[in-house]
């Protein structure tokens, strides 16, 4: 006798929990390597990992987990940021009060705000360190040039996120830092004014108005910064992270010593055992064959040195993530994010300091806004981006400093970079600069010849000297990169600790004049 309709339904009802589970978890219990691999590639979020990971990539010193740490900070920032948005009101008349509410009234609002602030700082630190690790291990080399550029994009978006977030509390710190920042965007006027062409060609005024929607920091600026901070930049960041990770997989996982350096998709060329293709073979077929021959063959050869990504990689990632959460929360409990008085367009903060990672820039800007705020950063960004294209030597990736010579060059460059940066700060502090010596000097000279531009030129000269002496572009790149790291550290330290009211030099904050 056939079952009744009710019985069929009751059976389905009984099987409901099992069917639900089976549709959510589409693989066996993750106890064997096979079922774990299945788990990794049948899950959208896990499948950004390869099912197996090379042992060398898992070593702590290979990455120090820095990329994952940056990703973790981003996740923390997303969660805490959405929570802050529940109360924050992006209007000049409400923003400050809503920040105060979050800080003093909203349940756990203060902690959420502090964690958001601290993981933002942490993220900047970690991204810079990550870039250093990628650079010093030569991991930007073929085929990873493109991913280096994607990384540069992530770096810039990270800084832009911090900068736009800085305005939102609408306190004194926010208002004056953004006033200065927006005027830096307007600083090409320095040059166009000297040349007398501002009336016809005014890129400075254009970019400033684009940023602020006005000539001064006000409601339009707040609206724009809010839009960028909560929508545009996080979306751009998420998209770039997607590309970054996808490229890591397509470039054959992390670079490591001992694998052949092959350009993406050109694997077939370098393998002498493959039959050569006739010159007139259709290119489409050629491309397909390369993918198959290049990647699969390589993975097969190395299979012994890999371990399943679940649990080895996932566990490592979880540890890094938890470390970031732990650090942000502990710092958030110990130290409050600052909230100064309500923004007042008539009284600047004295000293008005940007967030720490922009203080090196502020030091440069205190010599010339146009040179220090736009030209030098542009040179640095373009220079960093071009590294993989100008240094084509095939050092194996994953070896710090590419060996002993590189270590020596890095050490010497560190000394040189620190000395030059200290001089660049000390000379004007003690002896003044062009305008103190020749009061009527043209602004053109102040723009062109100032401690910032001289420092940049000295670093370039040092790198060229290294290139001449060693005839190695990799060593010259190490020299230049190390110099800029040194310059960044010194100027940031000076800006943080040695600059007081009127941007004057003080050995200690206790020497600041009392007002």
């Amino acid at each position, binding site marked *: 006798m056939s079952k009744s309709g009710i019985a069929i339904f009751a059976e389905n009802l009984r099987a409901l929990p099992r069917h639900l589970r089976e549709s959510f978890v589409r693989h066996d219990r993750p106890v064997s390597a096979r079922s774990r691999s299945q788990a990794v590639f049948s899950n959208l979020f896990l499948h950004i990992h390869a099912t197996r990971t090379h042992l060398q990539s898992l070593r702590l010193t290979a990455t120090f987990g820095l990329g994952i740490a940056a990703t973790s900070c981003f996740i923390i920032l997303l969660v805490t940021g959405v929570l802050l948005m529940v109360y924050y009101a992006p209007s000049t008349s409400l923003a400050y009060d809503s920040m105060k509410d979050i800080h003093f009234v909203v349940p756990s609002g203060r902690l959420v705000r502090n964690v958001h602030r601290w993981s933002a700082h942490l993220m900047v630190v970690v991204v810079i360190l990550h870039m250093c690790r990628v650079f010093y291990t030569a991991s930007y080399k073929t085929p990873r040039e493109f991913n280096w550029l994607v990384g540069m994009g992530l770096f810039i978006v990270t800084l832009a996120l911090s900068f736009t977030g800085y305005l939102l509390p609408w306190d004194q710190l926010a208002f*004056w830092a953004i*006033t*200065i920042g*927006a*005027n*830096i965007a307007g*600083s090409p*006027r*320095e040059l166009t*004014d*000297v040349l007398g062409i501002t009336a016809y060609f005014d890129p400075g005024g*254009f970019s400033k*108005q*684009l940023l602020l*929607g*006005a*000539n*001064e920091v*006000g*409601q*339009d600026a707040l609206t*724009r910064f809010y839009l960028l901070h909560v929508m545009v930049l996080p979306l751009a960041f998420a998209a770039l992270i997607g590309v970054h990770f996808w490229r890591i997989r397509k470039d054959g996982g992390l670079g490591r010593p001992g694998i052949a350096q092959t350009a993406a998709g050109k694997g077939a060329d370098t393998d002498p055992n493959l039959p050569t293709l006739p010159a007139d073979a259709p290119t489409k077929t050629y491309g397909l064959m390369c993918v198959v021959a290049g990647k699969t063959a390589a993975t097969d050869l190395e299979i012994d040195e890999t371990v399943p990504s679940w649990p080895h990689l996932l566990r490592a990632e979880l540890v890094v993530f938890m470390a970031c959460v732990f650090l942000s929360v502990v710092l958030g409990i110990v130290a409050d994010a600052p909230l100064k008085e309500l923004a007042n*367009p*008539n*009284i*600047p*903060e*004295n*000293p*008005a300091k940007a967030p720490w990672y922009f203080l090196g820039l*502020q030091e440069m*800007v*205190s*010599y*010339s*806004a*146009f040179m220090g705020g736009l030209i030098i950063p542009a040179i640095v960004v373009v220079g960093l981006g071009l590294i993989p294209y100008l240094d084509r030597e095939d050092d194996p990736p994953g070896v710090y400093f590419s060996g002993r010579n590189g270590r020596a060059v890095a050490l010497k460059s560190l000394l040189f970079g620190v000395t030059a940066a200290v001089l660049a700060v000390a000379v004007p502090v003690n002896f*003044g600069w062009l*305008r*103190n010596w020749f*009061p009527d000097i043209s*602004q053109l000279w*102040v*723009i062109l010849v100032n401690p910032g531009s001289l420092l940049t030129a000295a670093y370039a000269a040092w790198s060229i000297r290294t290139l001449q002496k060693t005839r190695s572009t990799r060593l010259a790149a190490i020299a230049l990169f190390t110099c800029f790291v040194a310059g960044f550290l010194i100027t940031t330290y000076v800006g943080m600790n040695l600059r007081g*009211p*009127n*941007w*004057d030099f003080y050995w200690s904050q206790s020497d600041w004049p009392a007002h």
Partner: protein
Amino acid sequence: MSGRLESEPIARRDFLGLAGLWTTAIAIGGALLGMVRLPKPSVLPEASRRFRLGRPDEFPPGTSKVIAGQNVLVVSKPQGIAALSLVCTHLGCIVSKNEAGFSCPCHGSAFDGDGRIVAGPAPRGLRWLQVSAAVDGRLIVNAGNEVDPGTYYRV
């Protein structure tokens, strides 16, 4: 004839495909180009920068007074009345008055009593602003209008 068309004939299908692709690209590109004009304001949201100072006899020669909330310094001399903008020409902080002239808290620019740059990164001296009188004789400053340094309004 030995033009390129002869040596590399393009298939009709390819031609139509390319034509379609380029038409789409130009249409979308043009639309985007039209839209990126949006963030550049054509009318700035600012209030008028003209404000009333008061009667000339409130500023006898020798006075020098900061107008609260306007970031403008009014100086009165025997040769007339002038207004100086206190917005630093470097990056827009507000300079403060001292014995020697003016100094900026942000990056240490210094100006003499007439607003000429003497030290620091500011590219030029402080702005002198237009002073005029309304029909009732009261003084008006237009902070949006710059005049040559050394211009005094004769009462």
